[in-house]
């Protein structure tokens, strides 16, 4: 039974878009389920074409590694204990950019969210606010 239902994904997306509008910016919002498969996607007007794949990649990365997508950048640091984790496997949607977060509910990861269109801080903040009520 896939826990990420369409209603939940829509609710998260609405919260993200409302936050983006409050900040006066346009973004793309991708929500994936716990398999990393796309559940919903919305791209606000004037969010450029590049945001499509980047938002999806952030969401997938967050679910695949169960960490914020920005953490992946640390995997390239020779001093990090996690050096090299980011180049294993068939990572066709791997990204190191901030803006992707795993979505937790009742102690389990039920999916991920990816925001693209603003600065890394904006994208991360919007992602965090969008899933805070789940």
């Amino acid at each position: 039974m896939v826990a990420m239902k369409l209603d939940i994904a829509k609710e998260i997306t609405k919260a993200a878009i409302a936050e983006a509008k409050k900040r006066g910016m346009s973004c793309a919002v991708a929500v994936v389920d716990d398999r990393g498969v796309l559940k919903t996607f919305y791209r606000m007007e004037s969010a450029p074409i590049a945001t499509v794949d980047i938002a999806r990649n952030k969401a997938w990365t967050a679910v695949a590694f169960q960490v914020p997508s920005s953490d992946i950048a640390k995997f390239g640091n020779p001093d990090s204990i996690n050096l090299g984790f980011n180049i294993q496997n068939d990572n066709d949607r791997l990204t190191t950019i901030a803006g992707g977060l795993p979505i937790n509910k009742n102690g389990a990861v039920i999916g991920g969210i990816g925001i693209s269109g603003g600065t890394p801080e904006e994208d991360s903040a919007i992602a965090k606010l969008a899933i805070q009520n789940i």
Partner: protein
Amino acid sequence: MTESLPKSVMEERAADIKEITLEMAEKMLEAAERWAINAGVPCSIAIVDKAGALVAFHDMDDSLFGTMTPDIAISKAQSAVFAGASNYLLSKLLDPRHIGPIPGSYYIGLLTALKGRLNMVPGGEPIRDNDMNVIGGVGVSGVPDGVGEKSDMTVCNSAIFELFPD
């Protein structure tokens, strides 16, 4: 007597649709989902703009065929935009029984074109403005039939019909 002639279907549509807005895409998704729920065929539905870039997408709960329907629905919508034609037509061109008589009928050579994003299976339709320019596309995957009364194609069309006022 031109006044008494019926208006064409295209003229009756809202005059100013020139691009797919997020609001329009949401309305189209909702219309398609209503139809799909009534028909008992939950599926994945994608709306892309004239560049083939995704604008809105839903994967309905309990849609069939596992995890492949999202990417397939998106690639169908993109292919309809790239080709400027219904994917049903593209699938006919791909039919090996048509090799020879139809111009350009060696489409089987295109199966891996566009980095594998080209999808010539029924279930994708272009969205056109009143001047017949392609302004976007709809793609559906997850209905057991690609063509027919309950099919990917009819869910697509139910999304497009939303653009025509009652």
